[in-house]
């Protein structure tokens, strides 16, 4: 039998076209691929920060329990709760309970906004102390005299990029909530995926940036 004839008799699989191999549709797959690429961005930034930290023998660990660790832990709890409310929103949308879905999305947005407000207050404390991207706070010179001036750059860049993702997420969720009567359930799921990704990144940023810089004296 010729090769061409034999090919025609191969069993049709889901990879032959006309089916959804991943069963998720192209929009959701697109969001997943975006999430993987964004995760690589954050990984690169966190690894660069870790490199800078390991290669220096003096790195500031300035976060006192109050307010920094309390604030950042509260922010983490808010973000985790908002992930839960987002799952509830997707569940409500799956059962076509659109008003409930809208309320759950509202709760998620509230969690995100609370996170942003607390985080900005945190930033304001540090900036007030004199921290800049390439200059350490003056009072840190006593405790960490030979520290490289990179604390500010790494802190503001990583947490700032994450804050930008939270802000964009809140706006995206607002748009989905407003148009929930006209969008598919898939769109609500996709916005949920983005929001959980934002939470996921914070799971790594929080220990590496905050918990590793705890000030034992404070």
């Amino acid at each position: 039998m010729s090769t061409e004839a034999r090919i025609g008799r191969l069993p049709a699989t889901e990879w032959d076209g006309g089916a959804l191999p991943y069963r998720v549709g192209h929009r959701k797959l697109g969001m997943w691929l975006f999430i993987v690429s964004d995760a690589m961005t954050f990984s690169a930034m966190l690894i660069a920060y870790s490199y800078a930290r390991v290669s220096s023998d003096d790195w500031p660990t300035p976060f006192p329990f109050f307010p920094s660790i309390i604030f950042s832990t509260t922010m983490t709890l808010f973000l985790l709760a908002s992930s839960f409310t987002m799952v509830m929103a997707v569940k409500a949308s799956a059962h076509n309970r659109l008003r409930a879905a809208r309320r759950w999305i509202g709760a998620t947005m509230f969690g995100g906004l609370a996170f942003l407000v607390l985080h900005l207050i945190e930033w304001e404390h540090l900036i007030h102390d004199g921290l800049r991207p390439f200059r350490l706070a003056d009072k840190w010179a006593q405790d960490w005299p030979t520290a490289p001036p990179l604390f500010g750059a790494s802190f503001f860049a990583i947490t700032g990029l994450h804050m930008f993702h939270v802000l964009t997420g809140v706006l995206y969720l607002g748009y989905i909530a407003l148009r929930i009567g006209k969008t598919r359930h898939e769109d609500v799921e996709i916005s949920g995926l983005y929001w959980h990704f934002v939470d996921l990144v914070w799971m790594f940023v929080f220990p590496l940036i905050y918990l590793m810089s705890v000030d034992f004296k404070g």
Partner: protein
Amino acid sequence: MANENIRDLLKRSDMILIGVCVLLAAGFLLLAGKSAADAGNFLTIDSLFFTAVCLLLALTFVAIPALTLRERGIHPLRVGDEVTPARANEHVHFEGSTRLFLYVLLGLLVLTLVEVFLAYIHVPLSIMLTLLIGLSLVKAAMIVAYFMHLRFERMSLVLTLIPTLAVCICLLFIVFPDSFRTREIRATGTVAQPPAQAAPSQGH
């Protein structure tokens, strides 16, 4: 009523008035926020008064369109629970109960508190880092599997996404050992040389 276009139900002059009121309300809200943020000490009579007046004016300008729309029975944002045309032909699958998600949330909260506790006890750095990153990986896995639903999706999707990310992160770590060398150079000004090779190369 919910799906009708607002433009069908209002005259153009009404739309302009509503737009102006919303803009003014937003403006006063921003002014209130700015005065609160700029005030050195917020709890003075002056700043409280100014903020309160701005908020009151913002409320007034929001109330005008809100009451007008309500009076005419227009609810621009109302949504009913009926199946909309966009959703009618969708094939929806959602596995997982509220109880499952609550358990996952509880686990995440507990692990977070464990991590915070860990930051305050004195263990060797390598152990602390291993535990912190390990716990974060567990939390990340829980979020990805349950909240992002990957546990209930096709294995082909899981195998496409997760190994991609894992391989790329491992590649990023290739330069990491150089940080030890940099640290040593900073500390001692030189790097410990490996022992000299056995025989010098011939014929050079």
